[in-house]
């Protein structure tokens, strides 16, 4: 008979105590496996969410992390907004000029030029760039009002994509985000940053739909599921917070996104133009603009029109919460960031850096703390093995003495006791590992829905990179920490088995035999 078999028989002999000790160890290991898996899922999720399809966020000056959390994860509250004119600085002349035509200043300009054209019999557009004393005078006046037509946006030459986000409303507990069609047409996501947003049903919203006007919405998968909304349904968002007052205007659901595992699954996207036209979303005009013949829409004006007929809000009354910017090349990113940050209107942050900084400063220590706690639980389970074996020693001195009388030496009986400890640890470890992976497997549909990370039964937790534990950094960097559970359990088993093993070693054979 091998020594481990003798140990196993002894454990069988104390069936209930052995089972309870094994279960205690199993619980500890299950928690370690669960924590390691969660840790891996969080890391994978962070890595996945760091592949955003854009490399810069521009928003109001304030906390960088808050801007990132607010924009990427839709957490926390936005501090301030940036003016719409600033947003237009990311576009080339053609787009910018077209957008600027929606401003009160442009309309004032048109009104004045039209007044001039009556005198000169010249089409108003032709007056732009035309030299004439009268036109010069008109343009001079407009320059004073900073219309700045006929030029590229300041940052446009560095920008390949700029998508606005407007936050502030809720649908149930979910954020409502106003944006443009580019969000789904242009952005990519996923670990390799190569996935495009797809629709389970419906389509992207139109810039201006013939039927719904600007009031179309695309729902994230979780929003549609939890709110029970389907294509064609309408909803009114609440203002300011989930418990806030509802807006009068209703958005029609025209698309539902496939689960992406990104925070966007938990967002109701609406056409930004519609978002602007909601009550209380228009920025109040300053006095000179109020007096102009502007197109700002009072509540009465808005309700006077059907949704499809409503004209867009003028630029002066618009703001954006954040701008998602993709630069033409990463080489220009630092320069663009500095240029924006040197200005007074906004700040630029690099979300990947912020996310990793957040991960390293908050999530990583938390992961380590959690890991340390679960390791402590394992240690406590280890102590329960010690107690279990040690308590059995008084009953087993006689058995040990018999084995010694049959020729077993002290080291042999010590080894048998250590085997008992190792077998209990390994049995508990195997049971705990299976339980931990069963938990992961059972939770995998929800994990995948929440984070986009797929977890299969046999998937091991990823290596804990950049963690330095007792000089194990290089090993932890390339091998799954779950692989280390087995040697760790054996070390623990030997450590906790040592005390009873020494007691076995020191058994007085003659006395124990005569005491029987």
């Amino acid at each position, binding site marked *: 008979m091998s020594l481990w078999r003798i140990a196993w028989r002894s454990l069988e002999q104390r069936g209930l105590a052995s089972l309870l000790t094994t279960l205690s160890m199993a619980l500890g290991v299950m928690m370690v496996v669960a924590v390691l898996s969660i840790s891996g899922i969080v890391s994978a999720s962070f890595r996945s969410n760091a592949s955003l399809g854009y490399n810069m966020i521009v928003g109001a000056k304030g906390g960088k992390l808050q801007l990132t959390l607010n924009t990427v994860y839709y957490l926390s509250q936005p501090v301030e907004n940036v003016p719409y004119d600033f947003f237009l600085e990311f576009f080339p002349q053609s787009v910018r000029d077209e957008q600027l035509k929606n401003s009160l200043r442009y309309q004032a300009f048109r009104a004045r030029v039209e007044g001039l054209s009556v005198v000169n019999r010249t089409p108003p557009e032709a007056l732009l760039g035309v030299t004439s004393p009268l036109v010069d005078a008109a343009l001079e006046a407009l320059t004073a009002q900073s219309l700045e037509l006929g030029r590229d946006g300041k940052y446009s030459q560095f920008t390949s994509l700029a998508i606005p986000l407007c936050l502030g409303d809720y649908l149930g507990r979910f954020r409502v985000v106003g944006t443009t069609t580019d969000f789904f047409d242009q952005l990519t996501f996923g670990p390799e940053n190569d996935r495009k947003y797809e629709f389970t049903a419906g389509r992207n919203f139109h810039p201006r739909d013939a039927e719904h006007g600007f009031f179309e919405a695309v729902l994230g998968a979780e929003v549609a599921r939890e709110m029970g909304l389907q294509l064609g349904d309408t909803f009114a968002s609440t203002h300011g917070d989930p418990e806030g007052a509802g807006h009068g205007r209703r958005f029609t659901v025209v698309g539902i996104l496939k689960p992406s595992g990104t925070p966007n699954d938990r967002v109701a996207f609406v056409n930004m133009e519609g978002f602007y036209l909601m009550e209380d979303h228009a920025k109040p005009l300053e006095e000179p603009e109020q007096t102009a013949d502007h197109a700002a829409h009072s509540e009465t004006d808005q309700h006077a029109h059907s949704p499809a007929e409503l004209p867009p809000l003028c630029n002066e009354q618009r703001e954006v919460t954040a701008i998602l910017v993709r630069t033409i090349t990463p080489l220009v990113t630092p320069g663009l960031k500095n240029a924006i940050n040197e200005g007074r209107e906004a700040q630029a942050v690099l979300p990947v850096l912020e996310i990793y900084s957040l991960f390293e400063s908050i999530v990583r220590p938390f992961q380590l703390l959690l890991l340390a706690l679960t390791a402590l639980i394992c240690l406590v389970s280890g102590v329960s093995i010690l107690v279990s074996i040690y308590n059995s020693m008084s009953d087993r001195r006689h058995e040990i003495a*018999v084995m010694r009388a049959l*020729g077993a030496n002290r080291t042999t009986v010590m080894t048998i006791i250590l085997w008992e400890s190792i077998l209990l640890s390994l049995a508990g470890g195997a049971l705990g590992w299976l339980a931990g992976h069963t938990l992961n497997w059972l939770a995998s549909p929800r994990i995948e829905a929440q984070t986009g990370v797929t977890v299969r039964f046999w998937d091991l937790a990823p290596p804990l990179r950049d963690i330095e534990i007792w000089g194990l950094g290089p090993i932890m960097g390339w091998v799954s920490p779950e692989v280390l559970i087995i040697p760790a359990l054996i070390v623990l088993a030997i450590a906790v088995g040592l005390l009873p093993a020494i007691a076995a070693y020191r058994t007085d054979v003659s006395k124990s035999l005569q005491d029987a």
Partner: protein
Amino acid sequence: MLQLTGITKSFREPNGHLLPILDVPHFTVAAGEQMVLLGRSGSGKTTLLHIIAGITRPDAGSVQFDNIDMTRLSEPGRDRLRAAKIGYVFQTFNLLPGFSALENVLLGMTFVQGRRDTVRARDLLERVGLRQRASHRPAALSVGEQQRVAVARALANRPRLLLADEPTANVDPGNQQTIVDLIRATCHDEGIALLLVTHAREVAQQFARVERLEEINRAVRGQHDPYPSSYDEDVSDQRSNV
């Protein structure tokens, strides 16, 4: 084969005094010899067996076993010698309760390197009439059967000497003779010397050589003798009939 010379052993009492247990000037067992050591309770029988088995070290003297002085061996050395050359049958059988009869016999082989002979273990169980009960645990065996398993275990390593410490003391009268016969027959068949300790007259009477511990152990000589003088005559009479 076995020669004890000048063996003494004392134990310290709770009051600090030394209590002499053994003082055996000379004692021998020849190879293949079968003998009985008679002694009353507390006469140092078990202590003497423990010293012969190398479990306990004497305070003084030497234990020569096959020309090896066991008292000069280290503890692991004595353990190895005991495992390989000395079988031990206990009064209380001392079978391990978690092991089957076969495993208990195999356990006797475990501590000798290279000896895990299941065939011999089964043969021994067959010899003691328990082949069909090889998989039974001690609790499922009768007292007599348990002692037979203990005998098989003691013989597992083909020892040179079998020490039997009152092997019939806990066995019902019907089984006592069976056990003694079994031990004697197997020792005879395998050429194993037998040193059987007992206080049962009927057992002692069957052996050609009977030693009284009170006579060879000076530490207890002169103390109350539980055996009347006629006992020696009875044993002699019986011996002449063996």
